[in-house]
């Protein structure tokens, strides 16, 4: 208990840092991944290659990825942000692509047949209908990034990983838990909040047969 009171301010600071390490890459990945995903649905011939490349990035072990970033961006926050951004890209990109492609063909044909332009079709029909799938991609990416962001601790980017690595170095399991438990709770909380946002963004589809 005494330990907890003593470490509490640090946990709070590290959590805020961790949140920053998560939110910035996810935000950047959403801002780039969704438009690129939309473009890929229009240019099917390059979609395989782009999604393939994003998958390859996803397979790079996270420790190695962080290692690759250090020569490029130096030790610290920027390197961590870039690495985490790359990890969050694939789920968002892929879900945008499949979400838009998954919209019922009859609905698309009806829209086109009634004289919607490609742009109107995208904004009024395809994107709104793809929201649940795109949001699922953002949630997946967020949970992944909260986990991997703990590794930012070893490259001096801060976050809850700092506590974990200190704990490992000092063979102090209390310290490890002080980093790990808030990280897990953060992942759950963000997933919950994004789930709420998803429901708000999917305009009334009560009783939809799906």
């Amino acid at each position, binding site marked *: 208990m005494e330990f907890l009171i003593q470490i509490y301010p640090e946990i709070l600071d590290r959590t805020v840092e961790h949140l920053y390490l998560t939110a910035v890459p996810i935000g950047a990945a959403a801002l780039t991944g969704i438009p690129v995903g939309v473009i890929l649905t229009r240019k099917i011939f390059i979609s395989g290659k782009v999604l393939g490349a994003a998958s390859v990035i996803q397979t790079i072990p996270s420790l190695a990825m962080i290692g690759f970033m250090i020569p490029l961006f130096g030790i610290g926050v920027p390197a961590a942000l870039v690495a985490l951004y790359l990890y969050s890209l694939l789920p968002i990109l892929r879900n945008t692509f499949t979400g838009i492609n998954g919209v*019922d*063909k*009859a*609905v*698309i*044909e*009806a*829209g*086109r*047949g*009634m*004289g*919607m*332009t490609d742009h*109107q079709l995208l904004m*009024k*029909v395809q994107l*709104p*209908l793809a929201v649940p799938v795109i949001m699922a991609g953002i949630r997946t990416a967020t949970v992944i990034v909260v986990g991997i962001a703990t590794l930012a601790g070893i490259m001096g980017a801060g976050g809850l990983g700092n506590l974990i690595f200190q704990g490992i170095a000092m063979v102090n399991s209390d310290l490890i838990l002080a980093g790990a438990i808030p990280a897990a709770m953060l992942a759950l909380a963000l997933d919950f909040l994004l789930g709420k946002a998803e429901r708000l963004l*999917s*305009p*009334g*589809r*009560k*009783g*939809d*047969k*799906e």
Partner: protein
Amino acid sequence: MILLDHVTKKYPGDVTAVDDLSLEIKEGETFVLVGTSGCGKTTTMKLINRLVDLTSGTIKLDGRDITSMDSYSLRRSLGYVIQNVGLFPHFTVERNVGVVPELIGWDKTKIHTRASELLTMVGLSPEEFAVRYPGELSGGQQQRVGVARALAADPDVILMDEPFGALDPITRETLQSELSPLWNELDKTVVFITHDIFEAVKIGDRIGVMDNGKILQTGRPADVIKQPENETVSSFFAQHRFQLELLTTRIEPLVEAFDESRIKRDKNTPWLHPHDGLIDAMDALKISDDQKVPVYDSKKRYLGIISHETVTREILNLIEQ
């Protein structure tokens, strides 16, 4: 009026979907293109609203070449109903009906009024259905909304691609008999596609039988069935010929003069319209306790009667042919 002049559509790999097809669809008529799947009927329809581009030939809408029009405004000016309905699942019924008006910039109150009016027309109460989502409706109700949506911006021409094809037989018949008088009364020119010959003869003022990208024969349903111009057309009706003749032989020439005052009438007395078929006459005679059924035209004017004797004689004629 829609004019197709030597229209051809070839797909890559030298597949000819529509082959040198010429056709004139008159203003206000319901023209049904009927044929087996893959005969090119859907492609023909999509050429009209330019969802598919022509390879050669011209299509004119009220004298204007459709390729000279903006394809988006062309489509907004034509009603469109498809087999799988294609309602937008994230829009309410009202917003679905108002899609085209919204695209062409009507204001909200006008769209709202129009949507209520149309829902009433297709037999759905606006109070109950306007705020519901398509997922909450049955297949038949969804297609009613689909038809209302096609009528929304009051187009002169409506294209319908197997609109009732995915419905169960009972719902299909209800929709056929409720909705086709609706677009006839509104004087719409309707191009209707189906593979169901019974649907074609029931709905069409004229039908066109299609096979392999070509129109084999066009004409009034009764004429096409009585005088098929070739083997393929005739084989298309084959085993249903007798039924189709009962359906399409109009009672009009069989009406006999009879003193109107001598007809017993109460509200349950069946009556016929001159455009009804022999089969309707048989149904009416069955429930009539008299041996005759009165005939009234659309304006409820008395024309005469159809007698049991005449109908029987006519049916025997058909059997002997």
